[in-house]
């Protein structure tokens, strides 16, 4: 029974799950409040959930893990900065940001998808570097684009965007605070969770359509899909476009909760933790479900919130960064080496 559970869940998940459990159990003994940490975990879960969700279409279509997530993030950042530039505030502002970033993400995703179709088999490495170079390219763009809004532009120069832009007067916590409630120190961002649930539902719905079914088949066996009359390349492009769009929406959700837009090298290492989270949830390089996303994000963000507080109180040193690096990259390594054994 136990063996079977471990076999289906996989060793890494069991170990990390137990580790997280141990953290929660020890927390009260070392003076860390469970309610705050749980609430922190949930907030971070909501912040990152949509971005992790963005992995699903590409993984399902066999394009591998979306190391090119920064591209979607860039689209989101463009949408966010433009909505602020136009001075739209509140819910409408957030909607504007989403509305503006979706077409940008679609265009970027389309080009990115076309590129990935020409480099089949090497997608992940190329995606990583496409992501990196587009971030660096945007660094130049942030400096040069003609933004004028003084909340965003460097005060003394009048041009070039700041590294971090506060969204306080625009749409900070616009989702999080919707219907949110507080019990003591426990804060629950209801709106953000509703939004995440809605996004999950959209993905679920899409995966049930004819196109979604075809996409799953492409990821599972492209030859089968081709023999079944599916245009494999088109499916892959659609998946990349979807992933990019969800990446853009994901970063907007993240920003409204975080309260700041991080530009320049901000999106640089966005992809790795996101990829690690979905793998932690039990996804493989070519199969991922919404369940994987929920479990993975919770475990990953749980560890991220709990280790600094608990481990620090126990060991009196901050090891959270090191643990994050080891866990996230170890997870990706595990997935990469496991896939090779099955497929080749």
């Amino acid at each position: 029974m136990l063996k079977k559970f471990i076999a289906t869940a996989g060793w890494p998940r069991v170990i990390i799950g137990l580790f997280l459990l141990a953290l929660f159990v020890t927390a009260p003994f070392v003076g860390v409040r469970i309610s705050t940490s749980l609430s922190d975990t949930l907030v971070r879960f909501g912040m990152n959930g949509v971005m992790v969700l963005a992995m699903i279409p590409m993984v399902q279509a066999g394009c591998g893990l979306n190391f090119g997530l920064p591209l979607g993030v860039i689209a989101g950042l463009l949408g966010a900065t433009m909505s602020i530039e136009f001075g739209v505030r509140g819910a409408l502002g957030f909607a504007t940001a989403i509305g503006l970033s979706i077409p940008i993400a679609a265009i970027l995703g389309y080009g990115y998808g076309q590129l990935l179709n020409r480099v089949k088999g090497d997608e992940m490495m190329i995606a990583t570097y496409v992501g990196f170079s587009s971030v660096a390219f945007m660094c130049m763009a942030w400096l040069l684009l003609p933004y004028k809004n003084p909340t965003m532009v460097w005060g003394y120069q009048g041009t070039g965007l700041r590294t971090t832009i506060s969204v306080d007067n625009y749409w900070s916590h616009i989702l999080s605070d919707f219907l949110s409630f507080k019990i003591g120190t426990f804060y629950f961002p209801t709106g953000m969770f509703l939004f995440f649930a809605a996004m999950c539902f959209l993905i679920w719905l899409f995966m049930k359509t004819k196109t979604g079914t075809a996409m799953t088949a492409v990821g599972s066996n492209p030859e089968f899909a081709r023999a079944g009359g599916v245009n494999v390349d088109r499916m892959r492009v659609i998946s990349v476009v979807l992933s990019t769009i969800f990446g853009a929406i994901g970063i907007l959700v993240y920003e409204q909760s975080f309260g700041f837009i991080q530009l320049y090298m901000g999106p640089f290492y966005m992809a790795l933790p996101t990829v690690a989270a979905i793998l932690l949830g039990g996804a493989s390089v070519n199969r991922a479900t919404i369940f994987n996303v929920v479990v993975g994000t919770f475990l990953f963000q749980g560890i991220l919130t709990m280790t600094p507080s608990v481990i620090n109180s126990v060991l009196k040193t901050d090891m959270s960064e090191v643990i994050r690096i080891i866990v996230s990259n170890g997870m990706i390594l595990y997935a990469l080496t496991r896939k090779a054994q099955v497929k080749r």
Partner: protein
Amino acid sequence: MSRLDRGPDKKRNRGVGSLLADYAVPVIFIVISVVAIPLSDFSATYLIQELLVRIGRNSFLILSLLIPIMAGMGLNFGMVLGAMAGQIGLIFVSDWAVVGIPGIVLAMIIGTPVAVALGILCGEVLNRAKGQEMVTSYILGFFINGVYQLFVLYFMGWLIPISNPALVLSRGHGIRNAISLTGIRMVLDRLIPLQVGTVTIPVATYLVIAAFCFFILWFRKTKLGQDMRAIGQDMAVADSAGIPVNRTRVIAIVISTVLACYGQIIFLQNMGTLNTYNSHDQAGMFSIAALLIGGASVSRAGIGNVFLGVVLFHLMFIVAPKAGRNLMGEAQIGEYFRVFVSYGIIALALVLHAWKRLRDRAEARRSLRGPAGKE
């Protein structure tokens, strides 16, 4: 004796287009440099001096990438493992206050077993991810970076004795962010002083690099080198001929890791400061970018690519910020431009390689088709 009367199936009449694709990257760079050098307003002697220093500093690291490419394992993003091993060697040498050339050699001796161990680990992992070597070694670099931090930031000064308080953080364990390597700073570069006009040439470093080049030339002639070339071209055939494929691949990575360890030590003796938690990060990316800029591809690289690459890459590196300021009134633009170029060039090279691979495969199939479709 009878001669077979049929010409080769696949003639080497590859078009101008594919020739351009092979050399696209260096050509782009030469163009960028030609435009940017006058914009930067640097004097020729300044540029030459800077280049000479940077060639000495970086070549060894880049050369360490050649052997895995020969073995068909692509760009060894895992070379940062070697860099970390080198840094561990340097930390101990600083702690023991061994200075000068003995210090450098000792750092190499200490770094070697660490690099060998990490290399074996890396090789074994890559053997489990055949066909995905690059992305796997890339992630492995991050992973081992975590382990490295665990050791250096928490274990050193606690489990691993460090006697020199100047190295340890004020909290009592963990190594400081920056270690000044005063004892071995530029000792190799200045071992054999040579001054031409106002330009100083680090002769000894160049001799070491030359020795390394000869090592690579010699290595290619050995049986081991031959086996690696065979594996690089066709693993299945090499296996059926009885070449121990997995073992040889591990050896290739081990050699690369150890050499990267030495390369990092040479790099840091020139820099004079060890950024305990960052120095190795950039080693991998910059070396790979430089090699690719030199016209190497994922499957083919030579010593010429290394030196062309190091010159072009660092030329761009030196002039970009200044050119950016002169052109756009903002040095930051140049900074970002060179970051963009480093990453962009790796992306471009990977894309070109993947394209070429798919094209070659299609071509190979077409040659098998024989006369079909032409009748």
